């Protein structure tokens, strides 16, 4: 049959698993029509007069359906069928990694809907609604600036997810201090301490996202272990951004990570990127003829040579 001119495309949403009836525009129930699905002819078994009936639709039913009216078989109606689900209760999480500047809220749906969803978020604090600046899609995230600090009033965040098949919302409330979670420390470096077979010097920096270390100092949590052992050792440090590990196993490679937390509030950051280091070990002596003679005598008498204990001079970093 000949397929004439263009026609406006309508959109029809249908829920997964339901039966769908598509009308051929305004034609009579008993008009002679044919239907195609994505340009493939559909046989008469799907027709109920001029209507197209699709049973227990699934995602594969999504697509463009076109109805042609006889006897000229011109395009009478086009409909884009979108099969999906209404949104389930969205999951929203708010966090401040740059306290006290502000916090962001991010959200997602627990399961896909297969059609376009829109999200609307409202943030209320002390009975006032606060603007949540949305980031560009597809990032489901927005940012709220703290206007006050040390607030005893809770923040209430309500997120509504909607699509043509339905909507659902979630409300969470929290105290300002509960959502503070810094980013991990940055530039973690671990180095051996010369002439010390059991020490490692670890240093790091504040996360660059933390805006005011002077007013809001962080404390740190260091964990370290030799690669050959699974058990971590931990040490908490309330000041400073470096630490000397003094009980490392000589000659063993270590893995080290650091986490951060506000001194008073909130939760620990994720662990930093892991760094590796091996404590200092004495350089093997060069075996010259002279040395070899002396060495042979020494080697035969002591099987275990204790590395020389060097007294650290004041200028070295010492662990008081």
């Amino acid at each position, binding site marked *: 049959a000949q397929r004439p001119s263009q026609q406006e495309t309508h959109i029809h949403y249908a829920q997964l698993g339901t039966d769908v009836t598509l009308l051929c525009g305004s034609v009579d129930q008993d008009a002679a029509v044919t239907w195609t699905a994505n340009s493939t002819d559909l046989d008469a078994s799907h027709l109920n007069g001029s209507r197209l009936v699709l049973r227990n639709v699934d995602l594969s039913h999504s697509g463009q359906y076109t109805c042609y009216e006889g006897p000229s078989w011109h395009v009478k109606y086009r409909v884009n069928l979108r099969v999906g689900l209404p949104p389930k209760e969205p999951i929203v999480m708010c966090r401040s990694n740059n306290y006290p500047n502000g916090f962001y809220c991010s959200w997602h749906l627990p399961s896909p809907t297969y059609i376009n969803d829109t999200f609307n978020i409202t943030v209320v604090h002390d009975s006032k609604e606060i603007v949540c600046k949305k980031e560009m899609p597809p990032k489901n995230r927005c940012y709220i600036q703290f206007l006050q*600090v040390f607030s005893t009033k809770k923040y209430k965040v309500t997120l509504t997810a909607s699509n043509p098949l339905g909507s659902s919302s979630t409300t969470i409330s929290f105290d300002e201090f509960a959502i503070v979670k810094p980013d991990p420390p940055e530039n973690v470096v671990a180095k051996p301490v010369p002439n010390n077979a059991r020490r490692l010097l670890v240093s790091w920096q504040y996360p660059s996202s933390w805006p005011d270390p002077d007013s809001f100092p962080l404390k740190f949590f260091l964990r370290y272990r030799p690669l050959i052992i699974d058990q971590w050792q931990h040490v908490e440090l309330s000041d400073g951004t470096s630490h000397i590990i003094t009980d490392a196993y000589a000659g063993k490679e270590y893995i080290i990570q650091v986490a951060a937390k506000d001194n008073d509030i909130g939760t620990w950051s994720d662990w930093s990127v892991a760094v590796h280091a091996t404590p200092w070990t004495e350089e093997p002596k060069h075996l010259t003829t002279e040395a070899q003679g002396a060495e042979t005598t020494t080697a035969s008498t002591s099987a275990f040579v204790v590395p020389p204990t060097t007294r650290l001079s004041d200028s070295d970093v010492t662990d008081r």
Partner: protein
Amino acid sequence: RQSIQQMYDLTRYLEHQLHTLAATYLNYLGPPFNEPDFDPPRIIGAKAVPSATVDIQEWHSLNDNARLAANYQAYSYLLRYLRTMDRATPAALPTLHHSLAHFSASLQGLLGSIGGIMASLGYSLPTPEPSVVPQIDPPTFLRKMDDFWLLKELQTWLWRSAKDFNRLRKRVPPSAVMLHLESRGF
């Protein structure tokens, strides 16, 4: 020697102590006060409790004197209220009594410490505002609401003080505290 470090350490100690005390007291008040999402309106007595909440720019701009004075004024009130809570607590709860009394004594120590540092830095003490402190009456729902807000404000003030005093200990060298003491004939 009244050092800012000791004041800061005492604040951190009180912060830690209050977590336990607040949980115990709210459990004594019972539901809904001990439920995590309880967020009552702030009415009548609770309005009198000095709020730690402050505009962020304003807080940054406070000088040392203003910071210390705000803390001093707040704890003067909070301590008076805390003592009424202690007296209103039934005698049948000795443990709670002891915790409240111990905490009040420590808070008195902090108040004295703040006053000492202010004097040593040459600042005059703020005159406590004659705000109304609720009298001891039977634990009505409204009185419980006041207690709830008192504990929450106290927790927030200690959190704010820790930031204030941490900033202070970095800005004011110990010697400045000593010099001023000597110049005032201590």
